[in-house]
């Protein structure tokens, strides 16, 4: 892996987004892109969009989160396929009613008349001194809402492929991008396929193993790989699974793995209580109890808000050592 990195040209996260958006906008004129500061490309993922697709299909949004998501829902119901760039995931809360009452429910409540192909992108912007108002990881809230799909890729090629699939999907899809992967961590070789698609709902087995299953979400997938590497030196064989899509979750892959290994650790950057990790743990104990040979351990962010001070922040998140400790507890239990 490390050796390969120096040889193969790598895809950046922002490039992945940019390529997915531009390819799909070129492919389907119903796709439009709206977000803050797109024309000035402040976040870096909108390069070329305005020039190529024009001001009707590429719009800068005023600050109005609820209105923006509702407008996307209405535009979708009237035939467009909007991509909304909400920039930071902490800004989703202002739009929650529109997510729940309109985007998620309209199709069902209207008996299938409505189709809502909307993609909403936002970055998980934790770990970087942005403090409590910019560092949320709110995807578990949305997992509690039927009708929404959720992707959370951990590599740039997956982001490219999943985002393209999301834009083609006829359902509302929330795309959460872990900003900690924007740098070196999340890169991978640039897909050569013209149409690099990763289907929604399929996990990736990042590393096969036999002693314990480690499911890692977002940055958690990388921490799981790092931990697995280190554990292998001690003779522990960890299987690392990156779900990539949280709704629909790839239960068959996860359950099959735990049935084999009998042990499970889940690494999830969300707040602990009612996290994605909680759901995975609950489902596994419900369905694989007979195979379980140790406790299911969650490695999550502690249930606190994100403190500003660099002296305080990092400790609250999952890290490699916490994952290793969790694996040892799972093996001991």
């Amino acid at each position, binding site marked *: 892996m490390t050796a390969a990195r120096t040889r193969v040209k790598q895809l950046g996260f922002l490039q992945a987004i940019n390529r997915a958006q531009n390819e799909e906008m070129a492919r389907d004129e119903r796709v439009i892109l709206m977000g803050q500061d797109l024309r000035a490309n402040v976040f870096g993922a909108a390069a070329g969009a305005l020039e190529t697709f024009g001001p009707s299909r590429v719009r800068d949004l005023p600050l*109005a989160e609820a*209105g923006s998501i509702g*407008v996307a829902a209405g535009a979708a*119901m009237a035939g467009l396929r909007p991509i909304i760039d909400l920039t930071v995931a902490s800004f989703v809360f202002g739009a929650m009613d529109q997510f729940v009452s309109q985007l998620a429910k309209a199709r069902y409540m209207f008996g*299938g008349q409505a189709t809502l192909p909307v993609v909403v992108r936002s970055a998980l912007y934790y770990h970087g001194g942005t403090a409590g108002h910019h560092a949320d990881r709110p995807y578990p809230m949305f997992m509690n809402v039927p009708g929404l799909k959720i992707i959370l890729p951990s590599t740039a090629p997956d982001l490219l492929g999943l985002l393209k699939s999301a834009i083609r999907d006829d*359902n509302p899809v929330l795309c959460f991008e872990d900003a900690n992967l924007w740098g070196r961590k999340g890169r991978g070789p640039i897909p050569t396929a013209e149409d690099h698609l990763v289907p929604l709902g399929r996990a990736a087995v990042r590393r096969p193993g036999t002693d314990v299953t480690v499911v890692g979400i977002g940055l958690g997938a990388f921490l799981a790989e790092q931990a697995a590497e280190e554990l292998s030196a001690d003779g522990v064989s960890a299987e690392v699974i990156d779900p990539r899509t949280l709704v629909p979750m790839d239960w068959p892959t996860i359950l099959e793995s735990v049935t084999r290994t009998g042990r499970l650790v889940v690494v999830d950057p969300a707040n602990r209580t009612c996290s994605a990790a909680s759901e995975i743990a609950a489902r596994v104990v419900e369905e694989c109890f007979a195979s379980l040979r140790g406790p299911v351990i969650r490695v999550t962010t502690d249930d606190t808000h994100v403190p500003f001070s660099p002296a305080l922040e990092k400790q609250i998140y999952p890290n490699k050592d916490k994952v290793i400790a969790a694996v040892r507890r799972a093996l001991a239990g």
Partner: protein
Amino acid sequence: MTVSADTGAPPAEFSDAPGRQLALEMMRRMQRVRLFEEATIALFHAGELPAMVHLSIGQEAAVVGACLATGNADYMTGNHRSHGHPIAKGANLDALMAELLGKATGVCGGKGGSMHLADFSVGSLGESGIVGSAIPVATGAGLAAQVRGTDQVALCFFGDGAASEGVLHESMNMAGIWKLPVIYFCENNGYAVSLTSEESLSVPDVATRAAGYSMPGTVVDGQDVLAVYRATREAVARARAGDGPSLVEAKTYRFHEHAYGLVVSRPYRDQSVVDTWFDTVDPVTLFHDRLIAWGVATEEELVALHSSVKSEVDEAVEFARRSPFPPPEAAYADVYAPSPEETR
């Protein structure tokens, strides 16, 4: 606000044959709303309604005047007081009535119910039980029309209570900056449940707020179907011409309780005044009298129209009654649209 019946020559809109048709269509749609809802009252008392209904009786001129100023290809969203909107937009009564009874043949397959009617075939993109929540949805439909370059408009119904919700502001601002073809149509019936509009609105007229978004705001007599039609048609013309959104506020009355059958122990409006409304400000009677005074229709024609709508409504009730309930598995359908990337 009682309007005495005009006499003499009919207004320009109704003076030729197509105009006469338009006038009769206004009456027909108002009667459809009125008689449909009277039928739901009967169903309520017969214990056949699975849930409460919010009636538009008294507000027919507002909803019909607004909807008839748009076409079938235009979009519309509304709120919990939802029957009038799709009916005025031209929806089939059978499927609406079946929906109220939770039947499989309902316009939403029985899954929406009274507060959440939608009939996409006539541009009705759905009503919202969450007050105010569909306002940006209509705005987005307007955006779609603009991006696709059609001349469609979106009509957005909301109440005086909903006017306090933040999404109205966000939506009107977006429509303003992008000059979207949206008509924000406020049915100001004076109340949000028990709260008077004077108490919930910091300004006498919602229409005043239009100036804050560089759009025209008009107050119109909501009991006068022609006045509503004219004001809305002007807004529609403006929208189709690419000149952007408008706000039309119809001052109207809700003749029944907030939800039919709801008992509010502490009175919040003067019942003796309410009791006079059917005689003084009933939009159906007012229009009936004018049509005759103008010579646009005869009493006989209007009686015939009434009874033809009556049978249509009766048939809708029968249709709804004899329709089957949806099968249990329907509860799990349409949570998601099918897609190539379905999970295994």
